[in-house]
């Protein structure tokens, strides 16, 4: 059985169920309690679980993650929230220099199973509040980096992340919290924290993306299907460990690849995917890999400028035409 849930409610369910299941699970972050969470994921939790388990913190990102690490070593299961990914930079030392390394550096003696939930997105918030930093985390061995696009994954991943023994960076997207989807019933619905998923089959071109980019890919695929172009759409879901195999298998079928990401193109996740695909499947490529990404400027505030920066469905369609050598000469801001 399954029910339809929003992405937000899927996250809420995962957190609630795990908190009921295991007393050691607690939440910590800025304004997650009295305020109800910046994106309302934890609304009502303070009343339900009390201040020991739903901890409003000072605005101290490094401290929040560092306390999470210590708490995890000390036997708890912390889920820490960084209000948005933009502020994760202040916690980068704890995440990269400590969290990611504790298990290896101390020779497997102990681990720090912290789940760091954070959110990316945009919406006329200007340069410091509209950034996509998943590549910063995906770069680091020792971390698992998940980026669920659909409610089912949001729930299954979050529960698995809480129960697992590795540190997990759990990236959400502010513009998909209201998206709906089927979520299987059952308190033990868990998804392994790895593996991309082919969500739409197609023979002509592979589009790989994640988070909001996945929905752009899907929209583009549906539109292109009306003119007979069949796109295979892969939701990457997990950035580390990277499931390159699923992408390669798809490219071997379609011989064409479009990567859609909201981050900047240079040095991003898409760059990694493109390089890995050419390492493994260059002979199968009938066209250069196309990448749709944000224009490389700090995000402007003005609505029209912001729209020019981020990927949209039309840019994805344009990229598909490009790899199919059907490119119409519509000017695209790059």
């Amino acid at each position: 059985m399954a029910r339809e849930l929003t992405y937000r409610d899927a996250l809420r369910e995962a957190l609630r169920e795990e908190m009921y299941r295991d007393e050691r699970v607690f939440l910590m972050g800025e304004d997650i309690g009295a305020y109800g969470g910046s994106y309302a994921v934890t609304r009502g939790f303070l009343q339900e679980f009390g201040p020991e388990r739903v901890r409003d913190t000072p605005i101290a990102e490094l401290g929040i993650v560092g306390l999470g690490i210590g708490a995890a070593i000390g036997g708890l299961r912390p889920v820490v929230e960084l209000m948005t990914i933009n502020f994760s930079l202040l916690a980068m030392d704890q995440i990269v220099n400590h969290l990611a390394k504790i298990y290896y550096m101390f020779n497997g003696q102990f681990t720090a199973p912290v789940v760091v939930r954070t959110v990316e997105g945009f919406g006329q918030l200007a340069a410091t509040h509209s950034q996509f930093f998943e590549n910063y985390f995906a770069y680091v061995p020792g971390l698992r980096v998940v980026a669920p696009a659909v409610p089912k994954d949001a729930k299954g991943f979050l529960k698995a992340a809480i129960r697992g023994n590795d540190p997990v960076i759990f990236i959400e997207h502010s513009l998909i919290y209201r998206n709906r989807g089927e979520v299987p019933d059952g308190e033990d619905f868990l998804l392994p924290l790895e593996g991309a998923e082919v969500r739409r089959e197609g023979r002509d071109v592979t589009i790989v993306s994640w988070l909001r980019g996945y929905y752009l890919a899907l929209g583009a695929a549906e539109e292109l299907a009306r003119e007979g172009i069949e796109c295979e759409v892969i939701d990457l879901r997990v950035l580390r460990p990277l499931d390159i195999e699923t992408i390669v298998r798809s490219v071997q079928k379609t011989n064409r690849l479009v990567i859609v990401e909201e981050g900047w193109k240079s040095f991003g996740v898409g760059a990694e995917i493109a390089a890995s695909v050419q390492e493994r499947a260059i002979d199968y490529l009938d066209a250069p890999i196309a990448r749709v990404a944000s224009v490389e400027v700090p995000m402007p505030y003005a609505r029209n400028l912001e729209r020019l920066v981020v990927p949209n469905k039309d840019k994805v369609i344009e990229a598909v035409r490009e790899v199919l050598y059907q490119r119409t000469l519509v000017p695209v801001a790059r």
Partner: protein
Amino acid sequence: MTSTVDGQLPGVALTKSELLEMYRLMVLIRRFEEVAAEQYALGKIAGFLHLYIGEEAVAVGAIRAMDPEDHLVTHYRDHGYALALGLDPRRCMAELFGKATGLVGGRGGSMHFADASKHFWGGYAIVAGLLPIAAGLGLASKYLNQRRVAVAIFGDGATNNGAFHEALNFAALWKLPVLFLCENNQYGMGTAVAHASAVREMYRKACAYDIPAEQVDGQDVLAVYEVTKRALEHCRSENGPYFIEALTYRYRGHSMADPETYRSKEEVEEWRRQRDPIVLFRQKLLSHTVATEEELAALDQAVEEAVAEAVRFAEESPEPDPATLTQYAYADPITVR
């Protein structure tokens, strides 16, 4: 001052065997490090090697005061704490040699000693980075009603870093059982305290967070013991954190790579001659007839042999198995490629 009972120090609730063990550990740390420096010069030990020589009383006094259940996290100058905890000097030396038999199997080296069985959760090499982690351990202890105190060891240099302030604020705000033990050895690398810190007494910084704090003579092992004991009791009784500043001095450079251009030989000599923690403690033990010259000499001799044995062990131990290179990157299995 004279002792009333042989084998005891007035006003000190430690037995003779405990006092002699403290002496032995201080000598062990000293000798272990002197030999480590020699082995470094011989190229047997590489990387950064931060020696603790001169500061032995802090580790030994503090650890003696701790409960075996308490948590410990330290900075990278961690050999003294490991030895004071009773960790096998052979495994400590083997870690410096990068051998499979080392404390952490050769994965961490000098700066990352750890032993989970002793609740020693590691030496951390990023200045101040361990402080929020210590606060988190205090949080876990309180959450689980364990009465375990998390002890954090760090230098004066760490007190100027944001992580320090975040950790103190969290610990005070949530009344976490955390003992912040600052070793003020007067320098952060080559930068004297006065050049780095607007406030020269580290313990005064705790007042910004309403954390009780005091200064102690870090060259006096019994003074460190006493204040730590009291501080731990404070933390254990759900009063929240405590802050100790131990005034101490390192005789050697910041690390083996340090040319020591920032301080005079005379200054170092002065501390060595007048404030050496081992000499001071030795004199106290003798003058109060807690021990005889012969007893102490026998301990010195035993330490000498233990350290020589540690080197032999490290030398003869195998290097880590290359097949284990990627082991422990993740705790749960990964199947995708």
